[in-house]
């Protein structure tokens, strides 16, 4: 990556941070206003809404400072390149996206398939995505997937009396 590319990337990063400040600011305003609906108490001076309101007001204040500071750092021409920089960033991080999608699918499947089956599919599947594919690594992947799915489930049930989700699929 040359100097110009690096500068473009840093500028895009600052724009992304600027957008995060805006999101945080909007959330703090919305939550501050929603704290109005928390019922007050006649037994205490502050009530349940006071502390959150104080926190959201502080977030608002700091977010405003952050936005002003960020706007100062972003050159005008950087905005035009932001879309293409984001695309490039997503392209270089595709493995992170794949990993998270697989992980999210796993979390959703645990209550349906049960811990053991979902974990076996997840651990084996993700290893398959990430590993250099050779016969030996495939064998290791299967053994590890078995240990961290059915093995882990049996260990928790036997030794700790912690019963991991059995799954609607197995419960009928």
């Amino acid at each position, binding site marked *: 990556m040359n100097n110009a590319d690096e500068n473009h990337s840093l500028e895009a990063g600052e724009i992304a941070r600027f957008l995060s400040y805006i999101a945080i600011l909007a959330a703090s305003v919305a939550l501050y206003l*929603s704290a109005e609906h928390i019922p007050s108490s006649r*037994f205490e001076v502050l009530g349940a809404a006071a502390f959150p309101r104080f926190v959201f007001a502080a977030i608002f204040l700091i977010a405003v400072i952050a936005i002003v500071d960020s706007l100062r750092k972003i050159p005008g021409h950087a905005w035009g390149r932001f879309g293409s920089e984001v695309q490039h960033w997503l392209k270089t991080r595709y493995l992170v996206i794949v990993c998270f999608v697989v992980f999210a699918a796993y979390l959703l499947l645990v209550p349906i398939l049960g811990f053991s089956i979902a974990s076996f599919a997840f651990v084996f599947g993700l290893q398959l995505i990430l590993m250099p594919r050779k016969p030996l690594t495939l064998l290791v992947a299967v053994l590890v997937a078995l240990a961290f799915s059915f093995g882990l489930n049996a260990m928790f049930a036997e030794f700790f009396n912690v019963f991991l989700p059995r799954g609607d699929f197995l419960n009928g």
Partner: protein
Amino acid sequence: MGDFLTALVQIFAVSTLLYMLVGSVAGIIAAAIPGFTVTMAIVLTLPLTFTMEPLQGVAVMLSVYVGGLTGGLISAALLGIPGTPSSVATTFDAFPMARKGDPGRALSLGVWASFFGTLISTLILVVAAPPLAIFAVKLGPWEYFSLIVFALTIVASLVGASVIRGLLAGLIGLAISTVGADPILGRPRFDFGIEMLETGLPFLVVLIGIFAISQLLSEVEDSRTVRSGAKLVTDAIDFKTWKVMKEVLMSPVNLIRSSVVGVLIGALPGAGGSISNLVAYDQAKRASKTPEVFGTGTPDGVIASEAGNSATAGGGLIPLIGLGIPGSAVDAILMASLMVHGISVGPRLITDHGDLVYGMFIAMAVASFMMLIVSVLSMRLFLRVAEVPKWLIVPTVLTCCVVGSFALNNRVTDLYLLGIVGLVGYALRTLGYSLAPLVLGVILGPIAETNLRRALMTDSDPTQFLTRPISLIFLIAAVMSIGWAIRSHLKTNKMNGVKDANAS
């Protein structure tokens, strides 16, 4: 003397030592798994001690406790994921040290610091239990709130590269702690009718999501190194146990200061290892002549964090033994185990059951030696984690995170929360937000709110915070802490300015 000898005989019985050894191993392993706290390990141990003699049972639980306080170090140093909340600050320097090719030194530093921290806390426990217990109990909600205000100023030294983003992260942590039923009257807040938000965001799920999931996702950012079968640590692992022991002993001030911080925080009911490691780290950084090296893999950071969290074990026993008040959840379980055997824990414990109290002191010291032996002997095994390729470690640790999050409350909704928090954590990490202030906010938020409201319910006059001497001392310390942080940041900016000017 008779009580002491009776206790000595009971602790050094072969069966007790064997049970303690098993307890120490179990504590280390449980805490090394992200999401498994020391408290959970002790809860699981409790039923097993019902058939034992009271002292034997307590000794086993203490060895699980001491082992657990050290075990969190393993995943913190090797994976950058705090195994327990009490090893959050350990990740700041132990992980960079491991990544620079020195995982053996990072682990050894942590183990030795934990060992000395536990021993120092035991010594303080023996000498100062009665007076410290009376002091801790005299603190009212005013003093607690002021103490938490002081603790929150730690954010100033954890902000990382950007003060603004660090402050925002700390405040987001405080905001997260306000979700769910309010801590005084139980009124619902910010749940928007969503069932999983009604009881609030479980601290451990937030911790695992923020640190573990985001760290594991960042491990697979470079697809070429992952697919080539790269290991977490690529350099040769050097194991420097005895050299590191000398290194730890060469930092006596840091070691003693961090241990005293751990004891004091451990002695305060409600506080514990999750706060003490951060406070000890903060104090070490402030006292250092080179604070800028903290966070890059400096040994002082590892020593402070590990000595600080391990010393809470002795600190927590102070109010328990002195007054019968458990300082933490773990101490409450220890108390329960004694009550199961018909022993009432209170101010008369020392006079009525002297052998038991002496036995607890001896058990603490023995447990710290057990932890040291187990850790030193098994360190080579733990260091193998650093040799495991990323394609194997990422899916398996993600599965452990899922188990840890589920086992906490047996709730499937916590898993969905884990996914969401993990994604947010990765986004914040990528955008350059420091994650430590966020976790600190989540820990301290409920304690700050509870004590602020309780203080004003007791007396609506807010000047009480300034007129009560101990509260005032904490508030002055907070102001001084902020002043120090501003001075330090200005100094760093000035130095960077000079460097830039020289470079151009």
